[in-house]
């Protein structure tokens, strides 16, 4: 499926656009739907862990030390829920 893109001729497209592989939502970068953008202020962050469970798009990566990292803007749609739940003002919306 990876070889199908906006230049693929009609005879090489699947019928009805059916996708014959699983787990391909990752390939569809939805970050450009965003109109406001969350900014992560690392200095203010206490790693309390309240923000990433509320992200509807799994756009706050968490590393092996259970610490959050900067936003994954490929998928963040800028809903602002994370900024709302942050008790330390470590996320601002721009």
């Amino acid at each position: 499926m990876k070889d199908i893109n906006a230049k693929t001729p009609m005879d090489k497209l699947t019928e009805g656009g059916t996708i014959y592989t699983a787990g391909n939502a990752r390939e569809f970068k939805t970050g450009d739907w965003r109109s406001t953008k969350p900014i992560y202020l690392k200095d203010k962050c206490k790693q309390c862990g309240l923000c990433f469970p509320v992200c509807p798009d799994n756009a706050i990566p968490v590393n092996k030390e259970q610490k959050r990292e900067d936003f994954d803007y490929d998928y963040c749609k800028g809903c602002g829920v994370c900024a709302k739940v942050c008790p330390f003002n470590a996320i601002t919306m721009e």
Partner: protein
Amino acid sequence: MSIRERLSGNEAAAIAMRQINPDVVAAFPITPSTEIPQYFSTFVSNGVVDTEFVAVESEHSAMSACIGAEAAGGRAMTATSANGLSLMWEMIYIASSLRLPIVMSLVNRAVSGPLNIHNDHSDAMGVRDAGWVMLFSENNQEAYDNLLMAHRIAENPSVRLPLMVCQDGFITSHSIENIELEEDEFVKKFVGTYKPEHYLLNDKEPIAIGPLDLQAYLFEHKAQQAEAMKNAKKVILEVAEEFEKATGRKYSFFEEYRMEDAEYVIVCMNSTAGTAKYTADLLRDKGIKAGVLKIRVFRPFPAEEIAKSLSKAKAVAVLDKADGLNAVGGPLFTDVTSAMYVNDVKVPTVNYIYGIGGRDTKSDDIEKVYNDLAEIVKSGKVENPYRYLGLRRDK
């Protein structure tokens, strides 16, 4: 061996469905097609079919359930009429664009309003651009035969489009006529088992059906549907040929009745063709060269073949059992005339809107059309190409 029976059009359709034995039938009752799911649910209760019958709460859900079943890898069928089809409208397009070969028995009825439950073709004409293969049936025999051929056409890998078999509400759906049925075993073999290449319930191949299809893709996917519709022409003829070899009953894109030397030709669909043939016979006895072109395959529209068939006529009348309400004529008329224009056939042609809301169309009415055609040939001009047949009007 064929079995001689006498059945209504609805019974014939239900029996065809019993013999096809689809995996799922989802339907909601609506006059005049109600009897089809009613008879079919009896077959389910009596255990003579293996079908899962889904008694849905609306036609929108009936078509949605058929889409789900067909996408899952099953064979799904339904039946409806008029406003039931209108309620399905959104899902009608989903079915064809997802390339799901669902088969529907459409018993034609006027789409309200004002409220009317009788026959015309406004329901079918409302979905004529939806990407479904559309077959029309003159009588119960054709409604039955078209259903037996339906899956072979719809499921062909070069087609994969849904298909509807139309017949006239009450006029054929509720009239009992002689019919030749085929043996259950023959139908089972002729229709065959459905083995889709890709389907949702295949745990070896997880797939996603109907994804977001934006500017970069929908154009090409629609062109694929158009291509499939063109491919359907060849498949329809191949299936008809095989069907004729087995049953002796011949089908094509259309039936040409006394067309060899016909000067005055009536083009029509469904039951009116019977009246038109009868009238053509009466006129032939008087030495008037009348002919009938009965369209069976309305989608894909066999434009080139129709134009060729009409090319030797002196005048043509296209009978539409649905008005286009576009101030120029009915949908069949605009399709036939554009087919003639594109294929360089120049024959004076008129349109008659007729039979709306179940208004009877008798042989006298048809004879008037033939007389009008003779008048057109005599005068050499078509005064008004957009006419109503048998309309009450003061001036």
